[in-house]
């Protein structure tokens, strides 16, 4: 199945941004898989990053001044996200 995912998520998003004529954008995300590649490989396109739910802070240290982290104030300790 994953052979179908020949293109990385960040490359897909880059192609979309180019198609729309965007050099930069604000991003709001939930799944680490969706944003971590973009944040690592192309931080210059990220004007800001809103993350819903838990995440690994090491992945966004270089974007900390552009980061909004949203979580809930109760329940289990925040995780990356719960399982499907």
């Amino acid at each position: 199945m994953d052979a179908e995912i020949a293109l990385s998520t960040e490359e897909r998003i880059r192609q979309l941004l180019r198609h729309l004529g965007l050099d930069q954008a604000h991003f709001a995300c939930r799944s680490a898989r969706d944003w971590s590649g973009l944040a690592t490989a192309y931080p210059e396109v990220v004007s800001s990053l809103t993350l819903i739910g838990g995440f690994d802070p090491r992945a966004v240290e270089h974007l900390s001044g552009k980061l909004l982290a949203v979580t809930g104030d109760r329940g289990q300790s925040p995780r990356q996200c719960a399982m499907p």
Partner: protein
Amino acid sequence: MRNAINRLPGAQLVALRDYDLQGWSDAAAERTDELGTAMLQFLGRMAAPTSIALRGGEGEVAGITYRVRGTGPPLVLLPMFLAPSQWEPLVPRLSEQYCTITLGGAALGAVAILESRGHAVGYLQMVRTLLEETQLRRGEAVLEVGCGTGVLDRWLARRTGGAHPITGVDINPYLLQEAGALARRDGLEGAIEFREGNAERLPFADSSFDVTMSVTVIEEADADRMLAEMVRVTKPEGRVAVVARAMDMPFLMNAPLPTALKTKVEAPGAVGGVAVQGCADASLYRRMRRAGLTRVKMLPQVPAFDLDDLTMLEFMQDQPLPKLSEGEANEWHAARAQAEAEGTFFMTFPHHCAVGTKAL
């Protein structure tokens, strides 16, 4: 989370009041004003990207679907994991000041992970074991409760060559939309009927299906109400098959981790969550008997995910990481790299599985 934020100077943390944020939480619907205000205040302080006047509309590029609304600086909204409403309750307000670009498709969010999981050899082996126990006969009608992207319905339709009417029901319109697109992609749109509905109030008459199944949904619902509904819509002598994530069984990460770290990473419940009334443990078997099912066959299964299932594997392996110290994380990465170099890296994910029969 607060510890995480302390590592990130300048980052802003917003904790939604009296809210337990799970992967399936519908945060944009349940905390529309609070989340919207937090986002708009934050975005207002950030240097804005160049405003654009994209023509509203929809399209698909590189396997990502997009929908554009509003004008202003671009704000890209990636999928809100399993949230039924995704970003929609917030989009009108955000689009008053920003050009919102909502993304979807099989390459992103929960859809990518559900599809990766649903194609994994170990996972399909678990489902095959469950279905064999139902002794599904040609022509019998099958219902999947909480079908998500319909990956198992498509697998069953292909495997049985259209021998069974297959219905998938899900509470989540976003996942159902993706399920419809994936079924069309595979030429299976005529083989599966997708319906929107709540597992606790199934939109079907009594005794409608021969086999009613559900895979890793009972964790997120009122488990006993859901089981009662599954029994209700199943015909007498029909079978009810249920899989629940086992948060009471350990994981296995096949990598040379130090003992203390291995214990931490593989601890029961290290991956996944459960709703207050949900079931993610061995109480599944007792609950199925209480729901009136007979001949309940109990079949706990431990599917493995390896590098062939990369999207699912990465999703699993990343979950314990935020809880590790810097040193532990370094040890974890080294152990994983070593196992990967040896070609022996995999993780197992325990599940409780059972099949019961509805009495005559």
